[in-house]
């Protein structure tokens, strides 16, 4: 187990005041809150910051941690010495039961630390089970063709000895054609079991598209950059355009400029009222990497008298 430097996590010196610790924590908590931050590791950072604050905000825990930590550095292998906590009096009182802390935290402040997990009460009346939420990542193509995705869920449960254990279960779920980013699929009865004779809760799956190498998604509409050769753009052409449901032919009008937005009606995400697929033209320049290519460019230069900057007045 690695030693965790909680001061480093909060980005403060070891001798700062309690007030400063609170300020540092608040700032970082806002920055890394998973609902606010777009950073990939926001949730991990947010938890780490929360754990560090849990220890450092409490003068007793902080003193114990300081004594323990004086010989360690972040990342160093750590084993709490026996009876290290002799002489400290902890009164716990953390109302954050259920938060998952690191192994390091549990080894020091876990058991016998007075942070009583609030003794799980067994209620005798009938209550409907809790609803659960989980994210499911799908490919854009799944929304066009439908798919079956397996979803692995971890839910904390209380085992027979009263400990919280993470139980894993895997569900195979049908992804219906026409789902969109952020939509929910409700699986009735797949949430927590109900108490007594009450019904189980539901499971809500939130659909999220994996980012795609060529398509971009906006609601039910899809965007695609379509490279064109200069002669296709100038003379007009019929070109193959990929769509998530397979390639289609598209007419390009003569004198089509770069950046023109062309619509393939109804080729967006399918449904009764399907989305559209927007093609953004992108004229690419063939390299002048041979004598023949150079000659062609020189011929155009000599014969076309084209000034691409005429609108700039030069």
């Amino acid at each position, binding site marked *: 187990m690695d030693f965790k430097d909680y001061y480093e996590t909060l980005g403060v010196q070891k001798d700062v005041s309690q007030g400063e610790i609170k300020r540092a924590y608040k700032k970082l908590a806002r920055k890394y*809150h998973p609902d606010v931050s777009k950073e990939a590791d926001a949730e991990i950072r947010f938890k780490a910051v929360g754990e560090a604050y849990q220890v450092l905000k409490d003068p007793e825990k902080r003193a114990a941690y300081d004594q323990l930590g004086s010989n360690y550095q972040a990342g160093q292998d750590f084993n709490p010495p026996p009876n290290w906590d002799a002489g400290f009096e902890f009164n716990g009182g953390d109302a954050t039961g259920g938060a998952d802390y690191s192994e390091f935290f549990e080894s020091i402040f876990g058991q016998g630390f007075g942070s009583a997990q609030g003794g799980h009460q067994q209620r005798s009346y009938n209550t409907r089970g*809790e609803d659960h939420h989980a994210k499911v990542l799908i490919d854009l193509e799944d929304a066009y063709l439908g798919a079956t995705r397996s979803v692995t869920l971890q839910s904390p449960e209380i085992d027979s000895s009263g400990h919280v254990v993470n139980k894993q279960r895997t*569900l195979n779920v049908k992804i*219906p054609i026409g*789902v969109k980013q952020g939509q929910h699929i409700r699986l009735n009865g797949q949430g927590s079991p109900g108490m007594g004779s009450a019904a189980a809760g539901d499971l809500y799956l939130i659909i999220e598209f994996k980012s795609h190498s060529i398509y*971009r998604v906006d*609601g039910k509409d899809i965007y695609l950059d379509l490279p064109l050769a200069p002669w296709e753009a100038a003379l007009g052409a019929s070109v193959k355009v990929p769509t998530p449901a397979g390639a289609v032919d598209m007419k390009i009008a003569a004198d089509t400029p770069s950046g023109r937005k062309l619509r393939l009606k109804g080729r967006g995400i399918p449904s009764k009222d399907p989305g559209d697929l927007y093609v953004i033209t992108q004229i690419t320049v063939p390299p002048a990497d041979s004598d023949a290519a150079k000659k062609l460019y020189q011929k155009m230069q000599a014969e076309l008298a084209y000034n691409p900057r005429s609108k700039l007045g030069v």
Partner: protein
Amino acid sequence: MNQKILNGILLDEKTELTLVDLCCACSSAEEWIVELVEEGALEPFNLHSIGKQHTQWLFSVDSLQKVRTAKRLQRDLNINLAGIALALNLLEQIETLETKLRCLEIS
């Protein structure tokens, strides 16, 4: 392993959730959701025709995410209702702008 394939119900734009549905789905108290509506953080479709008769309010599915985000913001950052309403509004704007940006981006 469980090989059964589960068929869920897709909640689309036309799905309407009652106040009770929303409370259940987000494990929130009714009063708290009423407060979110009063703060303007959340708006039932039919707020204007129904007014304060909570039991008849109908919410769109994106309210689910909003209520859950609101709950986490309150729990984790201790933000009050006005702050939550502002944060939700700004988060929505950022989301819209980022989607627009992604679509305009030329790779």
